[in-house]
Structure formats: structure tokens, C-alpha cells
């Protein structure tokens, strides 16, 4: 299981945040934390989100990068990898 944090800047447009969250869910990444703030000029939304999945982070990052309204994607900090434990 991999946990990592993404910092995104997206254009303030119809459904921009929903699009990012939709891709995250469809690509089977679980959301652990999310903040979203409009930039001062109101033109963009800065999104910081922490997700976990048993898939490689690039499989999400590249899908988010494809969204028309996304202008920047960065992976913040080191990726945390845990081995699955039996419950």
C-alpha cells in the first residue's frame, strides 16, 4: 500500500474539483486528506490531497495531468509504502 500527497493547481472551472476527485476514485485511490483553496485572483484552485492505493503513484498522477483544467501536479514528500497486514 502506497501513501502519498499531491499538490495540484487547477483552473477554477465547472466541476474542476469533482473531476480530480472522480479520477482519483475511478483509478482506485483512497482519499485520506484534502484541502482546496481558491487563489487570491479567484482564477485557480490549489488542491492538496493525500491518497493511498496499492497501485503505483504515476498511474494516478498521469491521469490527473491529462485533465484539461489541471495546470500543475507535484508529488510532495516521500512516498510511504506499507506492506499489507493480515487482520
Amino acid at each position, binding site marked *: 500500500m502506497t501513501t502519498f500527497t499531491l499538490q495540484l493547481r487547477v483552473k477554477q472551472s*465547472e*466541476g474542476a474539483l469533482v473531476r480530480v476527485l472522480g479520477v482519483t476514485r475511478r483509478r482506485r485511490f483512497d482519499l485520506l486528506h484534502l484541502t482546496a483553496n481558491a487563489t487570491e485572483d479567484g482564477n485557480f484552485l490549489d488542491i492538496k490531497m493525500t491518497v493511498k492505493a496499492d497501485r503505483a503513484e504515476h498511474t494516478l498522477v*498521469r491521469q490527473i495531468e*491529462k*485533465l*484539461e483544467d489541471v495546470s500543475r501536479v507535484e508529488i510532495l514528500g516521500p512516498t510511504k509504502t506499507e506492506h499489507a497486514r493480515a487482520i
Partner: protein
Amino acid sequence: MKGAQFLVKALEREGVEIIFGYPGGAIMPVYDALLDSKIRHILVRHEQAAALAADGYARATGRVGVCMATSGPGATNLVTGIANAYMDSVPVVAITGQVATSLMGTDAFQEVDIFGITLPVVKHSFLVNTAAELPRIVHEAFRIARSGRPGPVLIDLPKDIANTIADFEFHDVTETSAAPELHDPSIARAIELMRESRSPVVYAGGGIGMAGALAEFRKFIDATRIPVVATLKGLGSIPTTHELALGMMGMHGTKAANHAVQACDLLICVGARFDDRATGRLNAFAPHAKVIHLDVDPAEVSKLRRADVPLIGNLRATLSALACPLDIEPWRRECLAAKETHAWDYDAPGSEVYAPGFLKTLSDRAGKHCIVASDVGQHQMWVAQHFHFNNPAQHLSSGGLGTMGFGLPAAIGAQFAFPDACVINVSGDGSIMMNLQELATLRRYDLPVKIVLFDNRALGMVRQWQELFHDKRYSEVDLSDNPDFVRVAESMGIPSFRVENRRDVSSAIDRLLAEPGPVLAHVLIHQEANVWPIVGPGKSNSEMLDEVAR
């Protein structure tokens, strides 16, 4: 000028010549404006068919297909067609009417959040919130639909915006979509892998045709002389009769194609995405191969299979850079010998019509420029296996979504694009019923689409799986109460005839092709006819099942 009038003028400016659609309350201003336009509107009988016809038009021409529907159920009926275009990367712009902005969010009559509903199945979408946005949105929609990896774009237009009178100006800003630049060290590394390889295979996908890279691809194959396997959408990237074409790979692929992939030491994937139907069990797919992956979409590279050399960018440039002669003669001979050993055998027992043989004969007689729009199921795989294609745009098939009911509307779209072409819809008794109403569209516009309806009185592919993988526990696959398709077709003004015996196939095909207008051949086949070979679910492509004795 009203918003709706501007929309229609902007569509004209984008080069739109034809729209497939169905009117209704919220889209009425646009239909009113269409009366004064040179754009031809094609009235289908169900909105799903409008989206699928636009998809078929786009696949056959490479241009953006356009469909239109009203709000609510009109819009939701488009969704399957939009998803179909999304899964196969087809450039389509779908325009939906929406209730007035003042009513949005109030559960108004025929209000549905089509923007939200379609989010997972569009490349992008727009809700027009103000009239001022309309010029930019229309222009952007077309740019996005056709750029990079193509896909469907939705424009949801509220009725009050459509009726707003304003001074609209065309949005003529030309944005260049920056294709990633070729990375020279990667090209050099790819050529190094190609030269080291003793047994390379090219895995050709739908991206080749969509990128307009057929010429470059063929030069690349001519130079390297690497054997080629194709996905469903990649068929025709080189003519299927080409010496080096080993046929389709995957679940219903040829033995020559699957064996070559499983044995190869280098797999050069061109515009394909390692779909599960193509790869079989992924961790057993091409187990000895290094991978060079060429694609315009970075998200597809190393998504399912790690690429040793990713080559992201326009296929035309990449393929040209990779064309070089290789020393692989023993491997080529091995592949060509396997192709000969496993060539199709059309000498099947029995007197009933043998669908693969029917299609082979039809392909031989229909000419090398005919367009085939297939539905989904066993007949779809038989078309892929036995029809010859010189170009992927001749083979319209719902690959990713697998949409039963795709074939007839797609054939309609293709026939409008090429009025003089021979367009054939191959369907099944399950699939045809999904958009049967479009026979009325064929009649209305007198489109000379030739329909071959294979009828096994069953949902054949599901029945085949239940036979092979569910211990013959047949669940809801019986269609023995089908209507009389000949009478149904005739009632809609489509000449029709039945073919019941193999000895009648030759004359039936002559009759089908000689008919000047639309025609439906109702072809009865054995209820238990199966598609062979088959790779079972979860199995490796090395484990192909042959026909089993009953």
C-alpha cells in the same frame, strides 16, 4: 444574434457538415437555428443512435462527429454512445440542451445533471453558464476532441443562454497543443533494443489510424520487416493480407499472432494500451519481452506493463525515427511458417451456413474499399478474424465498451460520410434489437447499407462462455422467440431475404451486394456455433482453446 444561432454558425466554422440528433424542449432554439444553416441534420429514432452514428462518422473519416439531443432523457440516452467514443478515443462533440439556468438545481421538467453524469466518460465537458463563454467553449470543444489522444467532449447549453441575444464574436485563437518532443536518447535506446533483438514483434493498436500515421507505420514495417500483430482497432494498420500481418492478437486472436507475442524477445507497442482482451493474463503476457511503447498519451505508458523504453509523442515522428533494417530473417520465417500452419480452415462440416466462410466470401466480393460496421458478440470476432481490411477506418467496431447496438448507427454514420461506398453492417440477433429502430432511418434517407444479420437464436457469446466456462448452465441466453426479422425489415421498408443453407450463400451475397438501396440478409446459423480459438478468462494467451468436439 441568439446564442443558438451563434452556436450553429460556430459549428459551421468548425467545418461541421452533418449532425446526428433528436429534438426536444430544451434544445429547440438550436433546432430553430438549424433551419437557416447549411449543416445537414439527420433525425435518428433514438438518441443513443445519434451518438453512435456520430462515432461511426468520426471513425470512418477521422473528423469530429457531432450529435445533439435535448435535456433529461435525450441527454441520458446519449451516454452509452459518449462512453463508447471515450473508450475507443473517438473525436465526438455532443451537444445537449439544458433547462434554463434559473431552473437548474430545482428538479425541473427534463432536468438532469448530464455534465455530472458524463464526467467519467468524457475527455472534457462544458456547461455554458453565460452567453459570453459560448464562442470560446465551442472552439475549445473541437480542439480538445481532436487533439492528442482524441475523445468525446460535451457541451451542455441551457435554454436561456441559447435564447440570449448578444454580439457574439468567433473565438479564433489557435492554441497549439504541444506534443511532447521526442527524446533522442530514448530513440537511440529503442533502436539499440531493436538491433539486439532476435525475435521482435510489433503490437499495432488503434492509435496508428487515429494519429493519421498509417504511411509512417507502413514505412517502418517495410524498413524493419518485423512481424505485426494487431488489436481489434489496429486491424488494417497494414493490410490484413500483408505478408507480415499475423492477424489479431488476444482472446480470439490467431494462433500465429499469440504465439509470436508469447515467444518474442521485444514487443514494440504502437498506439495500444495492453487491454485485458488483448493481453490475456497480464503477468504471463509476452513473458520474455522487453517493451518499447509508442503512444501520444503518457498515462497509457507503463500503466499495465512497464515499458523499457517509453516513446511518448506523435506516432508519425516516432515511427519515422525508428525505421531501420534489422537482421531477423530466421524469426520472420518462423512467424510466417506458423501463419501458414494455422491458416483459417473454411471447410467446416454440415450444411448450415458457416459464418466465418460467409464473411470470407463476402469480404472477397465486397471489394477492398468497403466499410464494415460490426455489432458486438460472436459475429464481431468473426468479422475481425475473417474480413480483410486495408485501413483501420474500414473496420468500425466497438472495442473498449463493447456496445451491442453499435453497428447499425455506426454504419449510418459511415454511409453519410461516404455516400457511394459499400457499407456493410454485420450484426447478430441480440445486437440488432438494441437499435432496430434505426432501420427507419435507413429508409428515411434511403441509405444503401447492407445488413448481414447472423441469427443463432441466442446471445451467442454469452452462450459460448456458459458452455465452456459455466458447465453448460445456460442462463437467459435463449432468443428462440425472436421476431421474424425479414418481416420486421420489410415493415420498415427495407428489402430482406433469408439464407438458411450453405449452398445459398454465394447467391445471397451476390443479391446483397447487387441491391442498390438498403437490404437485410437474415442468415440462420447453428445455435451452438462458437468463436475459435479462445483464450479462457484469466488464462495466458499461450493457452488457446481449439474447437471442442460436441
